[in-house]
């Protein structure tokens, strides 16, 4: 009988230490290296939301998927776009690409966050919240999470775990404690846990439940995976920024905890690629060596590969619990989104975590624009200066709901900035041309629509100067017509 696809990658024992895969980390998983035993892939990070032919749909970066599929290690899939506490469905069907990722990478299990990231707006339009946000820890949220986990499991036909989330807001009197909430979801969904120790550590440092109290409450025999990361201090909060090495106290906690986790299959180090220059590949390597040493010191444990078993409650045709949970939860989620989009009171009673979340969402949006419209923003910074550019971006951020995909945020910003050109053109005569170029790049990618651009100077020289952070002075006039079209 032929082996199922990817069967040779199925580990006879718990896979062990791994990392979240980014192309820049590829040298650490090259043939001949043995630092990494399992790869975690965040599929949405390699998706785009395009609208060729007018119909929005997700598109995967095939080359990157091929690159990661070629790595001869077991894989895990970790969602960052369809968290389990959403009460609003993604308006663009993500499941064909999810299933494609499962087929191509053959993950041992799949995980997502116990958070929400979209709500229904005033006109009934589903809107992005701009970030993974914490749900209210109530019975209704438990019911909705269980419903979504069961749907997720049924759609992907893989074992599913949920991630214990970070929470920057103050605990509320009518909410469950952090551990109690995680236990309730695990029971209601019959689901394993992805225990993110850095998240719990953040929560404790920021005034919520202690890590020990949460661990005492959790069903440790259901912890399938651990996440470890480093963070940063911001406005008196410790952030789960995935920006540094794992803090030493957390390493020590992990070592104490490992013998208590019989179902644990993977110990994953998370680092965002933008922080790799600060940590360095050698720094990541040292981190992996430390984790391998911890893993090696675990007592021998009998480990069983989780297997997807269709459950009666997950069967197609079931309503996965109740629509009432979604209806009851939706306005609660929206209240947080509305609070974050309004100017915050500076009164002593205001939750300082709201201000932190507002700042993070704004950073996320400014970052998306800086990556996609780098030359336009460089010109704005050079032409308007720091304060005026920052004020311009704030004006945009307050006027429009966030978009999770950088290209859509960029498209929205370009349209808005076009309207300001009459007043900005006098100070930056080339702004219209640079903006039109980057807008055309986004358009051809998102919609497949070709553009013809007129330049009054050599575009490569102009963009080269901006890429170097230099004001475009002294360029000789030159008429250039450029065509951008889908390849």
């Amino acid at each position: 009988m032929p082996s199922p696809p990817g069967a040779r990658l199925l580990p006879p024992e718990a896979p062990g230490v791994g990392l979240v895969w980014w192309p820049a980390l590829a040298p650490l998983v090259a043939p001949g290296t043995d630092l990494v035993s399992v790869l975690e892939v965040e599929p949405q990070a390699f998706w785009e939301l395009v609208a060729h032919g007018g119909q929005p749909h997700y598109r995967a970066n095939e080359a990157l998927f091929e690159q990661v599929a070629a790595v001869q290690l077991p894989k895990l899939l970790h969602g960052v776009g369809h968290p389990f506490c959403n009460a609003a469905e993604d308006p663009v069907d993500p499941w064909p690409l999810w299933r494609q990722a499962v087929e191509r990478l053959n993950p041992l299990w799949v995980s997502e966050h116990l958070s929400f990231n979209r709500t229904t707006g005033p006109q009934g339009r589903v809107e992005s919240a701009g970030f993974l946000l914490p749900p209210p820890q109530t019975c209704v949220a438990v019911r909705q999470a269980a419903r979504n986990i069961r749907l997720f499991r049924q759609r992907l036909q893989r074992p599913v775990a949920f991630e214990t989330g970070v929470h920057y807001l103050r605990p509320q009197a009518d909410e469950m404690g952090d551990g109690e909430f995680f236990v309730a979801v695990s029971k209601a969904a019959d689901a394993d846990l992805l225990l993110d120790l850095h998240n719990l550590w953040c929560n404790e440092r920021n005034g919520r439940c202690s890590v020990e109290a949460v661990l005492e409450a959790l069903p440790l025999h259901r912890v399938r995976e651990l996440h470890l990361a480093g963070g940063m201090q911001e406005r008196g909060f410790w952030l789960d920024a995935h920006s540094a090495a794992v803090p030493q106290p957390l390493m020590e906690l992990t070592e104490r905890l490992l013998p208590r986790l019989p179902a644990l299959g993977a110990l994953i180090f998370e680092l965002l690629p933008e922080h790799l220059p600060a940590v360095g590949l050698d720094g990541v390597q040292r981190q992996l060596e430390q984790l391998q040493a911890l893993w090696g010191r675990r007592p021998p444990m009998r480990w069983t590969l989780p297997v997807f078993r269709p459950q009666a409650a997950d069967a197609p045709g079931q309503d996965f619990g109740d629509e009432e949970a979604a209806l009851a939860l939706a306005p609660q989620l929206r209240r947080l989104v509305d609070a974050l989009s309004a100017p915050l009171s500076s009164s002593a009673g205001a939750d300082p975590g709201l201000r932190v979340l507002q700042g993070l969402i704004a950073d996320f949006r400014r970052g998306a624009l800086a990556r996609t419209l780098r030359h336009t923003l460089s010109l704005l910074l050079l032409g308007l200066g720091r304060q005026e550019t920052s004020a311009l971006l704030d004006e945009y951020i307050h006027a429009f709901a966030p978009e999770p995909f950088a290209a859509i945020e960029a498209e929205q910003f370009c349209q808005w900035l076009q309207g300001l050109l009459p007043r900005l053109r006098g100070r930056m005569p080339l702004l219209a041309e640079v903006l039109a170029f980057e807008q055309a790049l986004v358009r051809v990618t998102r919609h497949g629509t070709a553009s013809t651009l007129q330049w009054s100077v050599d575009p490569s020289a102009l963009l080269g100067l901006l890429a170097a952070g230099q004001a475009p002075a002294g360029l000789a006039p030159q008429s250039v017509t450029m065509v951008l079209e889908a390849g």
Partner: protein
Amino acid sequence: MSELNPQPLPPFADRVRVHVPQAALYDLAKMNKITANVLGRLGCGGCHSGRILDYVALDEFVVNPVTLEPHEVLAGRQVG
């Protein structure tokens, strides 16, 4: 600016062709690199709950790559 996003350029460039119909003083290789740089950064962000510093880094880079001091003197002048 590659330090802002250390990911190697994903191979998006083959999706978009940039061409200039007439002979012009024009660096096509540089243009294609710029294009690929932008096209490689259009997706969704990764998993985290921290700050995204791309704009901060761009601001500091553009403002003064050597001293990181702001060139506010440019504000109000015509720069391009």
